[in-house]
């Protein structure tokens, strides 16, 4: 697949790296040669030029591209670039935007007609992810398909979890309602076999069906908490989108250091409490009574500060913490520090792009990018390879596993004897760098 990425900023660079591991043909377009130089040693091609120049788009071969991703810092430029690329013959275009209005359903046709097939608004997606985290405080990641018929959760296992210390093979009695897809242990994610033992402090990615979710909570030694009060540190765009989504439902307080921004937020979010002050200041934290909140969300500009204040909030008695961590290097570090959920815009954007890659019709595909693995939902097509044999005989490589499927609206877990049928929706869990294999199997 030929993919053009316009803009080598944080998101663009991350995407380019990820996709080059996925064995796709990547061309990165950016006017700044220094930013392109960072990508020199990756298996991709960089071209210096502007995303909104017809000449440059021609040079990168927009006419024969399968996917055009515009992720420059400017919304209007991204939209224009997508329109230009589409008119030149690119099959599918994706633009990064930063205003909530554009993603409203009633405007979709306008953008599709103008040549922008898909819009990514990372801040909005991030806010949505936080909403999910608030609903399911006991998990790190929550991935549901078809309205929750089938659910994949990432759970940190403590000593009190019933499944800790058992070999997967011995979990036979439970295999009816849970399936461990992957284990993240010491920064390494593995797809386990029957002989692997689940250990304390592992993050297990477990698939289950809707009716059994409560039993999974129990098996993992977790309790569900009801969230009522949410404290948000930092008033950036994610905070604003989040406030819009949850302001009426929960009691939300936002602490923001900049007075002007506070006024804007107060205007925008009438249901939220806005406090002017530096949230990393312990005094303010205590004054605002951090310990009384159910969830602490750290969304300041610096990843370090977010991580540290989450650790602090946890010490002060907050049950669930959420941190925005933009430095990829820090993500793994933060995960090992017991921070409940980590929000990373690059990963969120990657998820959307993988979705676009996996399916021509995005409504049928869904994807969640983790730091070193992806969870993807797709539809099994008529005549695809996976329908020919039982799952155990498919010869799936060791870096992927089929977690479950939804057939006729009912979720089922998958084991070796399952045979996939056309029309099934399946959830696949795979380690980074193997999404392209899925494409082949299901294509």
């Amino acid at each position: 697949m030929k993919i053009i990425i316009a803009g080598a900023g944080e998101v663009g660079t991350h995407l380019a790296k990820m996709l080059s591991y996925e064995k796709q043909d990547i061309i990165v377009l950016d006017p700044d040669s220094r930013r392109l130089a960072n990508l020199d040693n990756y298996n991709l091609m960089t071209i210096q030029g502007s995303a909104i120049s017809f000449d440059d788009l021609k040079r990168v071969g927009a006419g024969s591209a399968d996917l055009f991703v515009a992720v420059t810092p400017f919304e209007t430029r991204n939209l224009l670039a997508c329109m230009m690329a589409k008119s030149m013959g690119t099959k599918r275009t994706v633009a990064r935007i930063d205003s909530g209005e554009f993603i409203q359903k009633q405007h979709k046709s306008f953008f599709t007609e103008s040549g922008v097939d898909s819009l990514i608004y990372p801040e909005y997606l991030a806010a949505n992810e936080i909403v999910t985290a608030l609903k399911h405080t006991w998990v790190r990641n929550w991935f549901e398909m078809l309205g929750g018929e089938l659910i994949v959760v990432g759970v940190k296992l403590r000593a009190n979890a019933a499944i800790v210390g058992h070999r997967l093979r011995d979990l036979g009695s439970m295999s009816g309602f849970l399936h461990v897809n992957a284990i993240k242990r010491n920064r390494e994610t593995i797809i386990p076999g029957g002989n692997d033992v689940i250990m304390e402090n592992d993050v297990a990615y477990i698939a289950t069906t809707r009716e059994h979710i409560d039993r999974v909570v129990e098996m993992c030694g977790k309790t569900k908490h009801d969230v009522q009060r949410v404290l948000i540190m930092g008033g950036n765009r994610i905070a604003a989108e989040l406030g819009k989504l949850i302001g009426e439902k929960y009691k939300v307080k936002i602490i923001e250091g900049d007075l002007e921004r506070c006024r804007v937020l107060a205007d925008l979010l009438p249901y939220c409490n806005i406090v002017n002050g530096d949230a990393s200041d312990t005094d303010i934290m205590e004054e605002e009574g951090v310990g009384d909140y159910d969830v602490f969300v750290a969304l300041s500009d610096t990843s370090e500060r977010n991580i540290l204040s989450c650790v602090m909030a946890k010490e002060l008695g907050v049950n669930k913490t959420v941190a925005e961590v933009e430095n990829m290097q820090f993500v793994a570090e933060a995960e090992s520090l017991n921070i409940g959920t980590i929000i990373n815009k690059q990963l969120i954007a990657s998820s959307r792009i993988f979705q676009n890659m996996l399916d021509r019709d995005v409504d049928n595909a869904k994807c969640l990018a983790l730091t070193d693995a992806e969870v993807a939902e797709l539809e099994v097509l008529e005549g695809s390879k996976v329908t020919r044999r039982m799952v155990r005989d498919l010869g799936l490589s060791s870096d992927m596993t089929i977690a479950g499927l939804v057939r006729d609206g009912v979720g089922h877990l998958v084991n070796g004897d399952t045979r996939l049928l056309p029309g099934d929706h399946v959830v696949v869990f795979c380690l980074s760098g193997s999404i392209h294999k899925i494409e082949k199997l299901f294509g």
Partner: protein
Amino acid sequence: MSRSRFQHINYPIVLRMIAWLLLIEAFFMLVPMGIAIYFNESRVALSFGASAAITVISGAMMTFFIQPTSKTMRKREGLLLTAIVWVFFSLFGMLPFLLSGTIKNVTDAFFETMAGFTTTGATVLTGMENLPHGIVFWRSMMQWIGGMGIILFTLAVLPMLNVRGGVSLFNSEVTGITHEKLRPRVSQTAKQLWLIYLIFTVVMATLLMVGDMSWFDSLCYTMATVSTGGYTTSDAGLWFAGSTYEHVVVMVFMFLCGVNFTLIYKVVARGQFRALRFNDTFKWYVFVIILFSASVFIYMNIKGFGQSVGERVELSLFDTISSITSTGFASYKYEVSGGFISILMMTLMFFGGMAGSTSGGAKIDRMMVLIKNTRNELYRIVHSNAVTSVRVDGKSMAHELVEKVIAFLAIYVLVFVVVAVALTLMDVPIFDALFTSMSTLSNMGFGCGVTDGVGAYAALPVGAKWLLAFEMMVGRLELFTVLALFTRTFWIKD
């Protein structure tokens, strides 16, 4: 975990890669073995068979016994592999010479092999006509393999290097200031480049065979030409043994193989003739060839060289192209007419062909940047507040790149002088030392004075041969890749 003073380098993965590359080399050795069998040279065929067997066994043992625990290849591993693979290739590539008894000692054999792979074309052998065909063919073939690059070949045919590390290998083996890719994936780029190379080889060999050259000589000369290597099949050399038709064919292909292959691909495969017109480097390349061959021609006329005007035109063009592309097919002994032509040739070697071609030298791209930058510097002496930029192909070049180019050229000259000084220590006359050093660093292979003439390198002291063999490698990999290995920070944590 104890802390090591040394940088962590993943040696097993480097050795594993080398093992695989050796298997490829062994495969290449089977070709001259076939040639030897065809010419009924049983001992030579046997020596190639034995060499291939030794290489395969070594490679297989290395793959078998060395199990890399991690597959990561970072910058250090990439640099180390790119540099060291040439040493390994030469160590195993010299086996046929030793086993067949063509060359008796290791020093000479290693020198000859390194000169082959680096497309330098300096030789310790004399009496080419009496050498076994298998050996002659292997010499040309080594140049052919080395011309486009060992790593590049592997990238094109085997997927194993097509990982992140593979790209840094590509960057450290392919010549040039920046590394323009033809296609998004490095393996595709490598394939396109090798395709051009193969087409050149086939076309040129056919053209030579259509003339009255034997198929064996045609193949050998073709491989030595498209790689701009310069090994011959007879002592007399191409100039005296060949016809005008052959000279022209060789000249055309030397010229083409001194052009950036990416540019050729764009023009031929994509029909982008604009690329040619807007390429400053190509214009300079053509201009320098015309300027130098005209100077040589005029000088020859004054001095009364050669039989006729036609011969002088042919000779001046042939030698200019042969020098600028660092091919080094010897023609005339210029020293007898004073140093002028020799020094012109030496300048041309320094210039070299275009980056991204198979030619050696400092590359004309860099010379162009140097000269343009010099012009800017001089301009700024008068207009001290002027803000200037070096423009290449209509675009201004980043300052860091200009600095890198100038640093490159300074180090190039430094290496050239240091080796020359070392040679004079070994009793080589001063001009000969300078000329030989430049010729070796530029992967040219011409000799001068004591090193002039077929096989004259044999007479050099042992130390000089090792030194020159090393210099060839430094020149072929464009300095930085090899010299970085000699820095403290490469090995030791500070």
